[in-house]
């Protein structure tokens, strides 16, 4: 494996990290907390996101530990409810939604389109502060007693029947929502108005297209969850009655409003990950992404269809049969653009010169697991099977295949892929390949048994279960342990590589994106002179010509 690689590093004896870069430009904690630099804000996000991820992960560990035995013995059932609620809230609102966009998107979008920064740097910083305020409020809630409604805050449970901290958690999500709105708004404006000369829409890297589509969802869907949380808060405090059946309100209205955001939200989570996959697949197959236009438009199609499928979360909630029919059909339709992506990535591999560096391993993990996650989504979109499978572990397995198997794999692929650009140093290849494989194995051990548990009828959200389900639950818990190791490893060796990693040079992967045509780590203003895009995206011949020119001593602008 190691002999067959595209990695091209500068001579380690002479190479060094450029003295002037965005990390060394200013020093001191204030230069970070008051920065307008999109790259520094991305780092702030990366650190805080990882923090929340490990809290959410620890809660997941507690859940799996409790489910090791059929009785509820590790914690009381009420505590269990709080633990899985906080796991969901933290992982969804404070990890998955901002994960790739706020870190990699923030860092890379301006560089990929040849801009000096995002269009609104102050708003960008504000969005990080809002994220932190929301996140810390959520942690505070957890410390003072937590909340046990599940991450969906379903009425009337959340408004009438529970006595836990629904208000503070709601406020935390409300604040984090604005952080997400501002990120999305910033991306859309940047992609429209800040592109370098020659960077036409169909020369944009697919990473940018995917973020554009996700940003549309952030901007249009998030305000709706904001207003539904306001309504929950008012219902709880003064009893306004909009969701209260005794006054003529309808609890289902809450679910409509909530899922109008929260279904598009899963595309907010997955689309940026798909963008990462496009970049990685192309680079490590040395080929332009097959069907560039189709992949670009499939992102937008997912965003558009994503708005019209929300009621498939409510098939058993008493919506009309006709609504079920229509939403079931629309749900099937959204599988089409996702399949277009998977097929096009596969065709990109076909006759490519594939190498197996770590980002590529994670990407293969993504493609397999996301496909399973997506296809089981079709089972759930079919109303007949949904009635049997919904509220069971089948659902849990389905969305973990998409979110953890899909999104988290993509996130790790992206972190490894751009690590040399972000830090200027390579991560250690061998151990990170091991981590990718461990993650894949651990993941399948954890979540595949849950598909079987679900079809056998084990309901989600209970601390205890019939003893005949124990063997599969033990499998799942054991797998979670392996998965945990798979996630700890990158933290250790990535931190190690900050000091001891090999110097990466400008373009260790020989990738074509504009972000690779400048120094690593980049300057605060990204480019020494404004880049001019004179070739298509993923044009490896252009790159070779550039290299040849460099070797023959001709310097060129680009």
């Amino acid at each position: 494996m190691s002999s067959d690689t595209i990695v091209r590093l500068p001579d380690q004896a002479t190479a060094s990290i450029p003295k002037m870069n965005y990390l060394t430009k200013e020093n001191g904690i204030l230069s970070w907390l008051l920065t307008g630099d999109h790259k520094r804000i991305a780092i702030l996000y990366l650190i805080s996101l990882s923090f929340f991820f490990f809290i959410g992960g620890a809660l997941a560990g507690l859940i799996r530990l409790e489910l090791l035995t059929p009785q509820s013995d590790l914690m009381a059932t009420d505590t269990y409810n709080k633990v899985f609620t906080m796991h969901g809230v933290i992982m969804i609102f404070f990890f998955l939604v901002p994960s790739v966009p706020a870190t990699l998107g923030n860092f890379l979008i301006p560089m990929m389109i040849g801009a000096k920064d995002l269009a609104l740097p102050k708003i960008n910083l504000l969005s990080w502060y809002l994220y932190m305020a929301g996140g810390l409020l959520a942690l505070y809630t957890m410390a003072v007693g937590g909340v046990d409604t599940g991450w969906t805050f379903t009425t009337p449970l959340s408004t009438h029947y529970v006595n836990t901290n629904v208000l503070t958690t709601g406020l935390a999500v409300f604040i984090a929502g604005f952080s997400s709105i501002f990120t999305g708004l910033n991306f859309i404006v940047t992609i429209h108005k800040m592109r370098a000369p020659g960077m036409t829409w169909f020369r944009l890297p697919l990473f940018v297209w995917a973020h554009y589509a996700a940003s549309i969802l952030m901007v249009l869907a998030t305000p709706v969850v904001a207003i539904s949380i306001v309504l929950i808060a008012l219902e709880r405090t003064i009893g306004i009655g909009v969701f209260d059946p005794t006054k003529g309100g309808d609890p289902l209205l809450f679910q409509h409003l909530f899922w109008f955001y929260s279904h598009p939200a899963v595309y907010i989570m997955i689309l940026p990950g798909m963008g990462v996959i496009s970049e990685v697949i192309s680079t490590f197959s040395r080929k332009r992404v097959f069907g560039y236009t189709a992949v670009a438009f499939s992102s937008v199609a997912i965003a558009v269809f994503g708005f019209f499928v929300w009621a498939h979360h409510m098939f058993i909630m008493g919506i009309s049969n006709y609504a079920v029919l229509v939403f079931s059909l629309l749900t099937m339709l959204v599988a089409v653009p996702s399949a277009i992506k998977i097929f096009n990535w596969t065709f990109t591999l076909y006759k490519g010169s594939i190498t197996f560096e770590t980002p590529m391993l994670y990407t293969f993990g993504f493609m397999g697991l996301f496909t399973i996650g997506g296809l089981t989504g079709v089972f759930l979109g079919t109303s007949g099977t949904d009635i049997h499978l919904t509220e069971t572990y089948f659902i849990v397995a389905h969305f973990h295949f998409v979110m953890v198997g899909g999104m988290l794999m993509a996130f790790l692929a992206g972190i490894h892929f751009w690590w040399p650009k972000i830090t200027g140093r390579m991560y250690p290849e061998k151990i990170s390949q091991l981590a990718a494989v461990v993650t894949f194995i651990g993941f399948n051990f954890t979540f595949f048994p849950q598909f079987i548990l679900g079809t056998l009828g084990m309901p989600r959200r209970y601390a205890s279960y019939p003893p005949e389900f124990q063997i599969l639950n033990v499998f799942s818990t054991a797998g979670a342990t392996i998965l945990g190791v798979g996630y700890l490893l990158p933290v250790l060796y990535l931190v190690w590589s900050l000091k001891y990693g090999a110097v990466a040079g400008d373009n260790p992967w020989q990738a074509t994106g504009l972000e690779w045509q400048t120094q690593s780590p980049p300057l605060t203003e990204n480019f020494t002179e404004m880049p001019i895009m004179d070739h298509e995206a993923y044009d490896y011949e252009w790159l070779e010509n550039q290299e040849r020119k460099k070797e023959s001593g001709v310097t060129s602008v680009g």
Partner: protein
Amino acid sequence: MSDNTAHDARPPYLRHHFNSVEQQADTSTFAMWLFLLTEVMFFGGLFTAYLIYRNWYYPAFVAASHQLNVVWGATNTLVLIFSSFTMAMGVWCAETRRRKGLVLCLSLTFILGLGFLGIKTIEYREKIEKHHVPGFHYSMQSFLDPQSDPEVYAEYQDKPLQPDMAVHTEVYFSLYFLMTGMHALHMIIGIGILGFMILRARAGAYTSGHVTFVENFGLYWHFVDIIWIYLFALLYLISRHA
């Protein structure tokens, strides 16, 4: 574009990551429109709730809407439309670099905004006195027995509602307070920003060619105005069509 000449031509308000003033102005205006789009979605949730409940509980909505004072509502609509006019004049003054005119227009907008909130307070107070605020003290007396509310009865001669329909008037008032309250919150934020702008405009800001902030605030103010026009029609004028 060579870096040196570009640097010489850069006015102080041009941020480092933009290439030209036009690009900067374009960008922030585009961002403002997008922000207004998120606001549309935000209010959209409430309008959806209104649409559904109004269809379900039409008689209750009609009877409850008769509790609103159309004269006050219409006055407030005029106040807001006029404030939009003064705001638009303010933008024009900024563009044509008339400092005094700008301060005057912004101040008028400020006063009209306060006037709107003042009238809204009078209306809210009436609702509080009649126990029409949803929640624990809500009373549906005016709808079960319209004659107990002589002023409104004199105007509309409403028939009593059945108790199971009268209970839904509370949903109407929930939506009334939510929508007008959310709107008033936007007015308060707007008035706050106006105050800040007046202070800065007196010191000479916005009239030296950099008018984006005033323009974008103008967009916001007009947006809040338009929301009110919808609210007025939907909440006050339910039964007033042929």
